[in-house]
């Protein structure tokens, strides 16, 4: 299966986590001096694959072949020794150390005599490494004094130190451009190309245009499998996108027949809303029964906007009104008091208290209503919890089961139940189907339709454009902190993804 001259090959690799088959027999090979692009939606298995290659996870089945030898990678150090290096999207340099110290971190032995590190030699060597990537920075500077693009180059310089031990390298670039400006990306790409005689690269990104620009060959992953492989020269964005999504859009997947026209009552309104360094001049209205989707790439400001509406990052410009009264949420408690419920991206961190039972999670935001003379009415709490478990069809051994033991989809139902129980009239859905399998996703879509039909206003950011369009009544597109486009998305008028993408990138 793998090409004969491959420097690195994965052969039929599988990886299963409790409840999820993350990789279903993935085969990928990398040839000398090649830049291989790897694309796929969130949850397609890219990050699992990266973690297997960097020794963080071990595969359940299949083989990793380096050169012509099958290997086992059980730690980052082992992967490094075999010439596999990882460059992460951000913050993988220790900012409290100098650039030179970072370059040789963990490899100081060659500069050490009688236990004493010869810093002068180390910095001289680090300067040579920095020269390889054409980065003109004093290695004695602290890493925190560098901009993100330079830090990325330092990481590559650090990866190149492995040359001395491992010969030809394979460097994994995991979303390296997500924090960079366009000009910086150009520089990064030209440096990466210039290094092709020294190393092969695996380039993971969600920005399809960049993948096409940089890569020689592209793999497309979907649901834990490679679904397409093509030379970059033969690929274009629609083709990759088609492969990533993998199915022609079925209207019923998003329960469009259940989509009701929104009411007239304005629940949430933003006028000139801004937060320094994140977004500005945001105008929108959200009506009862409306689902408002916000599309945009990382860095578009939509994530920060979502956090503002949920009470985590108060805005510093413009006005926000809930049911006609102006608000500024200093903390989530104030948002909750205004009837806002937040379904977060990190379900297991911010969505649920995993180590508390289902019942306690459902009643957590609204315990006041359950209390009499300061005491919680335990019987009533149980009744309420059972009621919600039945209504939302939560599959759980019982209301006393810890949320830890529920599947992702059922956990998400509990999160929803807690806000419905708290009578939230505005729901902020922050990537509500992340990490869920297809069946669970469909159940979530159905519930979203139901609460929407009951008059709850929903603001949605999603992992995929398809989901945003499929669920929403209205779609806003954000780029660089402002709204660049808004469009109707009622049934029958759903915009095509290709029409929105130009407004996003």
């Amino acid at each position, binding site marked *: 299966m793998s090409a004969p001259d491959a420097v690195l090959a994965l052969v039929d690799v599988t990886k299963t986590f409790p409840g999820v088959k993350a990789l279903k027999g993935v085969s990928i090979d990398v040839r000398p001096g090649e830049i291989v692009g790897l694309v796929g939606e969130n949850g397609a298995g890219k990050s699992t694959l990266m973690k297997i290659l960097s020794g963080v996870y071990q595969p359940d089945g299949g083989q990793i072949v380096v050169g012509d030898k099958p290997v086992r990678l059980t730690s980052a150090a082992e992967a490094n020794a075999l010439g596999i290096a990882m460059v992460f999207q951000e913050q993988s340099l220790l900012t409290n150390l100098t650039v030179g110290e970072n370059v040789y971190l963990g490899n100081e032995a060659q500069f050490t005599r009688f236990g004493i590190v010869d810093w002068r030699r180390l910095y001289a060597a680090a300067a040579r490494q920095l020269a390889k990537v054409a980065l003109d920075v004093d290695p004695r500077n602290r890493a925190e004094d560098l901009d993100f693009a330079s830090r990325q180059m330092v990481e590559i310089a650090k990866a190149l130190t492995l040359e001395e031990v491992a010969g030809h390298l394979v460097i994994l670039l995991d979303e390296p451009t997500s924090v960079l400006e366009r000009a910086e990306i150009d520089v990064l790409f030209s440096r990466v190309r210039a290094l092709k005689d020294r190393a092969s690269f695996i380039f993971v990104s969600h920005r399809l245009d960049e993948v096409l620009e940089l890569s020689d060959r592209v793999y497309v992953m979907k649901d834990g499998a490679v679904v397409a492989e093509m030379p970059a020269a033969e690929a274009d964005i629609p083709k990759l996108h088609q492969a990533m999504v993998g199915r022609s859009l079925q209207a019923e997947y998003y329960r469009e027949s259940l989509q009701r026209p929104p009411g007239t009552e304005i629940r949430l309104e933003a006028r000139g809303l801004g937060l320094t360094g994140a977004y500005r001049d945001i105008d929108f209205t959200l009506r009862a029964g409306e689902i408002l989707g916000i599309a945009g790439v990382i860095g578009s400001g939509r994530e920060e906007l979502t956090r503002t509406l949920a009470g985590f990052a108060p805005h510093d410009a413009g006005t926000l009104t809930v049911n006609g009264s102006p608000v500024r949420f200093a903390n989530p408690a104030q948002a909750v008091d205004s009837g806002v419920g937040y379904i977060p991206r990190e379900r297991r961190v911010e969505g649920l*208290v995993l*180590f508390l039972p289902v019942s306690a999670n459902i009643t957590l935001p609204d315990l006041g209503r359950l209390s009499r003379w300061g005491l*919680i009415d335990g019987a009533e709490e149980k009744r309420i919890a059972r009621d919600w478990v039945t209504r939302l069809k939560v599959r759980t051994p019982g209301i006393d089961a810890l949320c830890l033991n529920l599947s992702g989809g059922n956990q998400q139902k509990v999160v929803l139940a807690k806000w419905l129980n708290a009578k939230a009239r505005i729901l902020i859905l922050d990537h509500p189907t992340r990490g869920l399998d297809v069946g669970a996703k469909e159940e979530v879509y159905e519930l979203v339709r139901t609460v929407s039909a009951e008059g709850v206003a929903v603001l949605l950011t999603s992992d995929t454009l398809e989901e945003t369009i499929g669920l929403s009544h209205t779609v806003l597109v954000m780029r660089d902190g402002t709204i660049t486009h808004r469009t109707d998305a009622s049934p029958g008028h759903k915009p095509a993804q290709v029409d929105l993408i130009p407004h996003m990138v």
Partner: protein
Amino acid sequence: MASFLRHIASDRVRQWLPLATLILLIVIVGTLEPVFLQPATLLDLAGDTAVLFILASGVTFVIMLGGIDLSLQSMASLSSVIVALTLPRLGYAAFPAAIAAGALAGLLAGLAHTRLRIPSFIATLAMGGVLASTALVSSGERSITLGADDRGYLGWITGTLAGIPNVVIIGLVVLVVAHILQAHTRFGRYSAAIGAGEPATYASGVKVNRQKVIAFVLSGGFAALAGIILTGRLASGSPTLAAEMLLPAIAAVVVGGTAITGGVGSIWRTLVGALIISVVRIGMTFLGVNIFAQNIVFGAVLVLAVAITIDRSKIPIVK
């Protein structure tokens, strides 16, 4: 060793381990020293446990939400000094005054922890220093023995009711109050939620900082009450009266099965833990172990109990 501990920790046995340990210890000590099992000795044991239990109950609230209070022995000592100094003038009002001082100290420690975002162990370590200093200065660095007149105010501590020492009854009242607070109020629920998952609790609209401050206020107040009872039993106040009580109090909480990482625990477990500590102490006394050297055992028991009860999945990086 680690895998053995994991076995115990992962087992359902863990929940009943403290109680089983307590019963086993009582049987062992009772076999070695039959006097131990007589009602009078057991009542003495209960009386001796009361102070420790009250201190431990207070810090249980803090540990439940994932913090720690290292100032409680200083607070209890300061409370004894306050009572000893003000009893002649204030009479019974000296007791609420001492408890109010404890609550105030807890409030300040809680505010330092939440507003200034200082880790609780360092905030309370520092607060302990301030309290110790206050106690030393106000007492003139000596212990204050109460006069015969003042001892009249201490009857509610030293007396008995139907043959049961009042301290035991006070301990039971504390047990009931603390149990209700912890198991049946919003504060108790929020504490458990914060300890089990602070980000999710915050995102659910719970005023996390307020709950934390309340926990520190309760811890300070309970420590002050413990100091009052110590004053009553010894008929004197001293700036170092409770100096040896920090470790046993925290050990009692952890030995009872409350996880140092927070979220899991109860006052009942703390009661069991406090009784274990008391029985161990009596057992060691029977064996003739120096009272100060007993700290060797408590230190070891503390570390072992933490090792068994700690939830490692909640701390990816152990610092």
